């Protein structure tokens, strides 16, 4: 049975390596620019994985970034206007996104394929337009002066002993925020992983293959679709809310439909078939997206060679071609590895197995010829 099948050794290794890498990253990447890029990766990873959770039932939501935005704006406004602590505003942001997801998901639960796509797409656009039109959100300019997470987190370690301890470990506000972000990301991953690998994820897969058969064996389509929407938008909301307190400024552009399209792209290139696919896709492609800003930041440092600055300018100028290159990457994936980037190891394994078999056949035939 799929739901009780043990996790493969390769993917377990990848999960451990990734977690260790991001745990140790602040030791090797001390600059804020790098940590900012990693945080953007976390947002993309959670966004993509939670989007895939919704897509498990066979429907692709085009409003997902908008729900990340709802979480972000709710937490930001609650923190700024009511002065709530981040430990309240972040869960409330997540709940707000989930609530909106469930309310809008109710009528959508009966829609399939293109109807669901178009419906969710316009829902997402509408949400962002509401955010841009409202006063409390800062409108099109954006929300500013959101209470910063780093202050709230360093505030937890009051007293000389605690702050001396932090200094010893080399943990400033930035590093603390990074680790908090990582914690929320891992939490989301555990929630979503368990969801998919329990019988619930399995039921959703059944639903995506044939809704009519699913109904005939007693599966309540609306209930299960709503469950995946609820858990998906909750994770989207919580990562958005965390980001709001990390960056302290929000702009509605960051949550437009274009961003959802990126998430879908990450998912398709990484591989939609299993849990690890969108994680790999999001990490690799978001890292590529971050290269121009990383290079710009690096070339601002003292003692950088002229060639490096020229190179970073060159990359910066051509970063407008990223969407084009990503589309090319998608084509390559679709033609060569239809299972996504994560299917490469198993493809290699299979092809080497086939080669061995062919060799064995050739040898056997050769043997027969000799006998004849």
């Amino acid at each position, binding site marked *: *049975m799929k739901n009780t099948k043990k996790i493969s050794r390769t993917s377990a290794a990848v999960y451990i390596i990734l977690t260790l890498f991001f745990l140790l990253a602040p030791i090797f990447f001390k600059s804020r620019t790098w940590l900012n890029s990693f945080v953007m990766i976390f947002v993309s990873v959670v966004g993509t994985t939670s989007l895939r959770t919704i897509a498990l039932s066979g429907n692709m939501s085009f409003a997902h970034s908008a729900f990340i935005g709802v979480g972000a704006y709710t937490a930001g406004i609650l923190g700024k206007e009511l002065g709530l602590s981040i430990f309240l505003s972040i869960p409330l942001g997540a709940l707000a996104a989930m609530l909106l997801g469930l309310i809008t998901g109710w009528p959508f639960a009966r829609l399939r394929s293109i109807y669901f796509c178009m419906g969710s797409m316009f829902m997402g656009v509408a949400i962002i337009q509401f955010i841009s039109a409202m006063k409390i959100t800062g409108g099109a300019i954006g929300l500013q002066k959101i209470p910063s997470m780093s202050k709230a987190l360093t505030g937890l370690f009051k007293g000389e002993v605690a702050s001396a301890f932090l200094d010893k470990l080399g943990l400033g506000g930035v590093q603390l925020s990074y680790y908090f972000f990582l914690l929320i990301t891992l939490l989301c991953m555990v929630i979503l992983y368990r969801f998919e690998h*329990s019988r*619930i994820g399995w039921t959703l897969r*059944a639903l995506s*293959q044939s809704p009519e058969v699913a*109904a*005939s*064996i*007693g599966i309540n*389509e609306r209930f299960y679709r709503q469950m995946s929407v609820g858990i998906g938008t909750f994770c989207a909301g919580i990562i958005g809310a965390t980001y709001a307190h990390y960056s302290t400024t929000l702009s509605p552009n960051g949550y437009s439909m274009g961003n959802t399209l990126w998430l879908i792209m990450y998912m398709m290139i990484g591989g939609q078939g299993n849990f690890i696919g969108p994680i790999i896709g999001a990490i690799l492609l978001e890292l590529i997206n971050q290269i121009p800003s990383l290079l710009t930041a690096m070339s601002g440092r003292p003692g950088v060679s002229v060639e490096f600055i020229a190179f970073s300018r060159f990359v910066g100028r051509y970063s407008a071609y990223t969407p084009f290159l990503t589309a090319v990457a998608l084509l390559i994936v679709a033609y060569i590895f239809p299972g996504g980037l994560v299917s490469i190891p198993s493809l290699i394994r299979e092809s080497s197995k086939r080669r061995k078999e062919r060799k064995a056949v050739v040898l056997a035939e050769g043997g027969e010829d000799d006998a004849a």
Partner: protein
Amino acid sequence: MLLETKNLTKRFGGLTVMNNINLTLNKGEILGLIGPNGAGKSTFFNLVTGVLSPTSGKIYYDGKDITRLKPHRVAALGIGRTFQLNPLFGEFTVFENVVAAHHLHPHSSVIDVYFNTKKYRENEKKVVESTEHILELLGLSHVKDELAKNLPHGYQKLLGVARAVATQPRLLLLDEPLGGMNPEEIIFSIEVISKLQDSGMTVLIVEHNMQILDLCDRVFVISFGEKIFEGTPAEVRNDETVIETYFGGVAV
């Protein structure tokens, strides 16, 4: 009486596909629902299982009004069904198809499932046992690890029945269970259906293949949405209206 329809009528636009059908089904019997193509047999199934709602009329199951109930609620009440075109969970193996069909029984709450509680694990053990038993009954044990979409047609039909049986129904609706089967498979399927009756299930069969008549306790014949005959299989064979409309005027 397990199932009863009262003046069941269904119209699609101006077309009446089911007109005032009063059908009763007694506990434990096998009723054959036969009629030429387009007679409204599959429509009848879809009305009973809630896939379609009737234009007028009522459907009672075990004395309870189930008209306009959603399909998953109908399944939960103990009505299992197969489909004529036989859709499957094609990407699941045969075994997984039947495991998935244990959605209702034994019941595990979503919380139990998510947190993998002791109750859920015990239930899963029961599911595996029951799945193996059902596959054995339907002669599918030797293909249990094949993907459902790769099975030959006859096996796919049997898998449809296995899936319906896994919902532990009291009433089983079989939509052309013998369609496209070879003679051996037909004999085997008829055996299986009579075994299911022996285990206490009530069965309603829609079928073209007249070999099914031997299995039925009663036969209900419809044509263009109207009932034209009801009686025993022997009577059907001798009834002139039935012979005229269904067998094209040649007695069998």
